[in-house]
């Protein structure tokens, strides 16, 4: 049955384990446009170049929900010996998903009066999607 997808359908897995209290995830996929215009053409033409993807996710700081993400960003193998250079992320909405290895490039913790503390994590995909279902 056809349906719209909404935030309530979304979730994130890190290393195969669901991340709790995720309030937002996003992914931007890009393909470089390589110019192949030659001198006897007067309209620019392009071919595809290298593909990349990056994005962000936001997690509420409830109990230890974002700790694994923070350790991954900091590459803190002392706190968590399972940390590797890249992490397997799985962005899900309903029964659809995008799964890939990523470098978690930054984490931003925000503690504001009157707001729930949250952690914004940015990532860059490493390699291609390992699997996806859209």
């Amino acid at each position, binding site marked *: 049955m056809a349906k719209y997808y909404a935030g309530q359908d979304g979730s994130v897995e890190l290393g195969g384990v669901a991340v709790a209290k995720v309030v937002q995830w996003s992914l931007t996929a890009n393909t470089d446009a390589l110019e*192949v215009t030659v001198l006897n053409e007067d309209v620019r033409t392009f071919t595809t170049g290298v593909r990349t993807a990056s994005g962000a996710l936001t997690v509420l700081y409830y109990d230890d929900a974002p700790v694994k993400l923070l350790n991954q960003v900091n590459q803190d193998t002392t706190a968590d010996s399972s940390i590797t250079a890249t992490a397997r992320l799985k962005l899900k909405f309903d029964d659809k998903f995008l799964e890939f290895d990523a470098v978690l490039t930054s984490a931003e913790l925000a503690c504001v009066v009157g707001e729930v503390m949250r952690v914004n994590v940015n990532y860059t995909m490493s390699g291609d999607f390992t699997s996806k279902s859209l």
Partner: protein
Amino acid sequence: MAAVSFPALVPSSRSYTPGVFPEQQFQAQNGAVVRVRYGNQRYSSSLSLTFANITDANAALILQNFVDVMDDDNYAEFTTSNVAAGASTDLVPWIRETNSLLKWKYAEPPSVTSVKPGLSTVTCEFIGELEGA
């Protein structure tokens, strides 16, 4: 000296200079200049070509052309459908050096920069030389 046709590739950028005339310049202390001209043919014209994001197969054609031109006393020959493509008829004789006695030789080996799997950017530098008398 034999002509070797350049591959059927149109460059994405092209830069040409017509060279110079053989002369010696003498300048007096008062600034006056006297030039002694040794010939009436220009020499050392130059042509820089860039072939951006071409297939590796086409890049290999350029490398082979470099070998074919430079491994013997040959010169590269251009046409209006490859190197001179896009130039007006007024400019084509200059780019091809058909309005002079100059012959195009490689000034240096082509430079191949790999862009992504299967694609490369190639730059070529040519120099127009007078045939030895």
